[in-house]
C-alpha cells in the first residue's frame, strides 16, 4: 500500500513535467501547425543553462528559473525569426520537420562538444531533504518544482484566456485568415508563441536539475512524451495538456511498480498507440 501511494505521488510529480513540456509543444503546434521536434533538446538546454548559472554565478536553481525562462524565450524568438519564419514561407511540412529535427541534433551534439558526455548534477543544501508524510516520503525539490509547475500552468491559462495577446494567440491558432482580417500581427504572434513554447521547455529543464542528471540527451524522453501529451490532451487545451501529463506520469510509475521499471517506456508507448487506434475506431464508427 505504501509503495502504491509512493508511486502515486511520484507519478503526479513526474507528470507535472510532462504537462509543462506538452503545454509548450501544444501552443507551438496549435498556432503554427508545426511539430517542434527539438522540444526535448530545449529542455536539455534549460538544464545546462541552470547548471552554468549555479556553478559559475552561484544562483540557486529556483531563483534562476525566471532568468532561464527569459533566455530560452530569447533563444526561441531568435530561432523563429531566423530559421522558422523563412521556412514557413515554403509551406512545406517536410522542410520544417527536417529543420526542427536538425536543430535538435545540433543542440544535443553541441552540448556533447561543450560539456562532454558525463552526467552532471546540481546539489544544493536542500536537494537531499525529504518530507515524511505518513507512509510516503517526498523529496523537497520535487515538491517545490511541482508547486512552481502548477503556478506556471495557472499563469499560462490566465494569460491565454484573459489578456489581449493571449486572445490573439488563440485567434491565430483557430483561424489565421480571420486573424489577418482583424489586423493581428501574425508574425509577431508566431515569434511570441515559439518563444513561449521554448521558455516552457527551458523552465521544465531548470526545475528538473536537482533530481535528474544533466547530460546531452537528457531531453529526448521528455520530448517524445510531450507529443503524447498533445495528442491525448487535445489541441489547444491547457487543462487537457495538464491532466494528460499527470496521467502519463502516473501510468509510467504504476507500470514501473506493477510490471517492471525497464518496461515502463514500452508500456507508455503501447498505451499511446492503443489510444490512437481506439480513437480512430470511435471516429469511424460515428461516421
Amino acid at each position: 500500500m505504501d509503495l502504491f501511494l509512493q508511486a502515486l505521488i511520484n507519478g503526479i510529480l513526474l507528470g507535472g513535467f510532462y504537462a509543462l513540456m506538452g503545454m509548450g509543444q501544444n501552443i507551438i503546434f496549435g498556432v503554427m501547425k508545426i511539430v517542434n521536434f527539438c522540444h526535448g533538446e530545449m529542455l536539455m538546454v534549460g538544464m545546462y543553462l541552470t547548471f552554468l548559472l549555479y556553478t559559475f554565478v552561484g544562483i540557486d536553481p529556483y531563483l534562476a528559473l525566471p532568468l532561464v525562462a527569459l533566455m530560452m524565450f530569447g533563444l526561441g524568438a531568435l530561432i523563429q525569426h531566423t530559421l522558422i519564419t523563412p521556412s514557413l514561407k515554403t509551406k512545406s511540412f517536410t522542410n520544417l520537420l527536417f529543420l526542427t529535427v536538425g536543430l535538435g541534433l545540433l543542440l544535443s551534439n553541441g552540448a556533447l562538444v561543450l560539456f562532454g558526455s558525463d552526467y552532471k548534477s546540481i546539489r544544493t543544501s536542500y536537494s537531499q531533504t525529504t518530507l515524511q508524510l505518513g507512509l510516503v516520503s517526498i523529496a523537497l525539490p520535487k515538491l517545490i518544482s511541482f508547486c512552481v509547475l502548477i503556478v506556471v500552468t495557472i499563469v499560462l491559462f490566465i494569460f491565454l484566456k484573459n489578456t489581449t495577446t493571449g486572445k490573439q494567440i488563440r485567434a491565430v491558432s483557430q483561424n489565421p485568415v480571420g486573424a489577418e482580417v482583424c489586423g493581428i500581427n501574425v508574425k509577431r504572434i508566431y515569434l511570441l508563441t515559439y518563444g513561449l513554447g521554448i521558455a516552457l521547455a527551458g523552465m521544465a529543464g531548470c526545475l528538473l536539475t536537482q533530481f535528474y542528471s544533466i547530460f546531452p540527451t537528457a531531453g529526448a524522453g521528455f520530448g517524445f512524451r510531450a507529443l503524447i501529451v498533445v495528442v491525448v490532451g487535445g489541441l489547444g487545451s491547457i487543462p487537457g495538456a495538464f491532466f494528460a501529463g499527470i496521467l502519463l506520469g502516473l501510468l509510467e510509475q504504476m507500470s514501473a511498480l506493477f510490471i517492471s521499471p525497464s518496461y515502463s517506456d514500452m508500456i507508455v508507448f503501447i498505451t499511446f498507440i492503443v489510444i490512437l487506434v481506439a480513437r480512430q475506431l470511435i471516429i469511424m464508427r460515428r461516421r
Partner: protein
Amino acid sequence: MLKVSKLNAGYGSVNILWDIDLELNDGEIVAVLGSNGAGKTTMVRAITGMIRPTSGSVIFNGEELAGKSSRTILNSGIVQVPEGRQLFTEMTVLENLEMGAFSKETKEHFRENLKKCYKWFPKLEEREKQAAGTLSGGEQQMVAVARALIGMPKLLILDEPSLGLAPNIVDDILLVAKTLVKETNISVLLVEQDITKALATADRGYVVENGHIALSGSASELAANEHVKKAYLGI
C-alpha cells in the same frame, strides 16, 4: 473615396485580375457581381492587402494603398467581412468582437461600438458568452459583420454575405448594410453571387467575368441589361 485603376493581381505566377478599374464614392453601396471563380474574392484580397497586387493602384481617400500591408490598409479604414466569415469558432462572441478592435482608437471606442453592434444585432448580446462556432449560420454572419464594425470602417467590404444562408437572413444582413450607409458615413462594397439581391441593395455595380470588368453601370441599368439577364438572372 476609393479608386482602383489598372489593378492586376494573382497567386504566384498565375494572374487572376486583369486591369481592374473600379470607383466608389462616399455614401455609396457598390456591388461587385460575378459567378463563382470570376475573381471577386481575389479582388477583395488585393484591395485589402492580403495579397500583393502585381501592378496598378488602389487610392483610398487620396492615399496610395497598393502594395501596403493588410494592417496599414485596415488602419486607413477599409475593413472586410471575409468570405466564409472566418470567425474564431472556439472563442465566445464577445471575444470575437474584441478581436475586431485592432488599433488604439478602435480599442478606446470598443464599448460604445459594441453597444451599437448589439443595437444592430440584438441576438448577439443574448449570445455574448457562447462560442461562435455554436451559433447558426446567420448569427455567425452577424458576428462577422459586427466584428468588422468594431473596427470603425470608412469602407466596409462584404464578401459573399449570402454564402450558405437562408434568403430571409440575407435580406436582414443587406438591410443592415443599407441602413448603415444611410445613418452613418460608411460606404459599402458588396461582393455577391446572388445578383438579384445585390442589385436590389446597391446603387451601382460592376460585373466581373474571368478576371476582367465586363460591365458596369447603375443598379437599374445592370438589372435591365440583356447580357446580365441572360447570363445571371436566367430570364
